[in-house]
């Protein structure tokens, strides 16, 4: 059965999985901490791609994203937006990432797929589910030996966004 769990394949697979899980733990720590937001673009390669897609655009293959960045520079511009360009209600975001799958692709890339849930908490309101969905990412081992996102594609389960996307997903 292709892709089924095999005990004898564990040692090498385990190292990869530990590294990838550690990467996502760090990703979430940074994405959820407004004081560390400037570190967020560093989790991507220089030409890293970031797209947040509603379910329908993903399903239909439409290219329009809710957020589209094609470089670390564009990610830095997104950070600047959250840090003073845009006006918004202060909020606390909380990501949970689980069901992480990773595979080595031929070109040295690591393809990953993970489920995520993001909660949002604002003044006067209890926490609510902001979005759920799937990360469909490509990681690479960068020149300095660190894992970085070559591509972070956030496919939402929802089409309808609860008002605003301020912070990274």
């Amino acid at each position: 059965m292709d892709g089924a769990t095999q005990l004898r394949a564990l040692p090498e697979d385990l190292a990869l999985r530990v590294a990838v899980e550690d990467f996502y733990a760090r990703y979430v720590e940074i994405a959820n901490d407004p004081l560390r937001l400037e570190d967020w673009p560093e989790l991507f390669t220089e030409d890293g791609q970031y797209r947040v897609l509603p379910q329908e655009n993903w399903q239909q293959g439409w290219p329009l994203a809710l957020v589209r960045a094609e470089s670390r520079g564009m990610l830095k511009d997104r950070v600047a937006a959250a840090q003073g360009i845009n006006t918004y209600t202060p909020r606390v975001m909380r990501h949970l990432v689980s069901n992480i799958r990773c595979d080595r692709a031929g070109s040295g890339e690591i393809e990953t797929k993970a489920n995520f849930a993001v909660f949002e908490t604002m003044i006067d309101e209890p926490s609510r589910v902001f979005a759920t969905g799937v990360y469909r990412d490509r990681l690479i081992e960068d020149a300095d030996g660190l894992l970085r996102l070559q591509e972070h594609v956030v496919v939402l389960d929802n089409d309808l966004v609860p008002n605003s996307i301020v912070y990274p997903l």
Partner: protein
Amino acid sequence: MDEMAPSATDRRWSEEGYSRVPYWLYTDQDIYDREQGLIFQGPFWSYVALSAELAEPGDFKRTFIGDRSVVIVRDQDGEIRGFENRCAHRGVQFCRTHRGTAKDFMCPYHQWTYDLRGNLIGVPFRRGVKRQGGMPADFDPKNHGLRKLRTAERHGVVFASFDPAVPPLEAYLGEAMLGYFDRVFDGRKLKVLGYQRQRTPANWKLMFENIKDPYHASLLHVFLVTFGLFRADNESSVEMDATGRHAVLVSRKGEQKKTEDLSDMKSFREALQLNDPRLLDPVREFPGTATVVMQTLWPNLIVQQQSNTLAMRQLVTRGPNAFDLIWTYFAYADDEEAMVTRRLRQANLMGPAGYVSLDDSEVMEFSQVGIAQAPQASGVVEMGGHDTEDTPHMVTESAIRAFYKYYREIMGV
């Protein structure tokens, strides 16, 4: 009767007229219900689709007029039809997908079936089973079709109305608005790039007002002001149709530089630079000098042309305290790939995560919660005077006043 609900006598409009907007307009359920009847089901054209979404016979789209779900479909003869998404039998909302292709529509509950024009063509057990039961002999399927809509199409944009008395679309838009409409919809084939949908916890009129309010744009939006995309010292105008229900905000991009008028624009950041300037790489593509035209078409459409990002913003009401905005981004079918990429990049300005639009959706929520505190108070809409005329500048709220002047006529408030 609920003593806390404002009674009809409490709902008085200030004597200052339409340069005041009473706050109960944004929170009152009774007003909302009357808007559904008088405006969204009234003799007006609501935007429902781009014909590019309905390319082939049988292609359909599920959408909304006000808060009513409707289905828009291209029939076997290639005509665009529309009907309410509500089975004539027991009221089931039978269509539960955004889009698809169908030969007919069957309600899942008792399998009443309708053709693509909304006519009832099938009722199971109509003649009974083993000569028992069945519909009465005088049951005539012709009297039990879906509630049909009028539809009209111009240059690839489809509108619909519940009211058979709706005037022709061109007359409804009026000459001036038609000119701006045709500027973007010039007959070229369109191509859908995708959708964005958001729910904003604010009354639908605040969204419409926002795009009739050039005053805020130079103040709230750091991004617009800093990069000169839409700013009070740019060459601009506000124009309306004869009724005041439709409007355009027109402007021409300026430079990122200081001028004496900037002292009031605290949002200007001289030092702000994009780390990746590919985001803002606009090219001129329309005749004339305007680089942004935002058009509000009563009662549910905003046509967005900001630089090279093009979108239909469709308002869907969700009770007095919320609305959905459905953004359909499009390109021209003959666009080169670089132009499509440019449009997709500039889409970062708009939508739920937009460098510009995010400010609006957040501030509208601030408005709604503030307004809800004091239904008997009123907003002040006096920038640019008390009148409703067109202006060759954007330091005015005249289009909001014109909107409410017309709104009061229709609503009788």
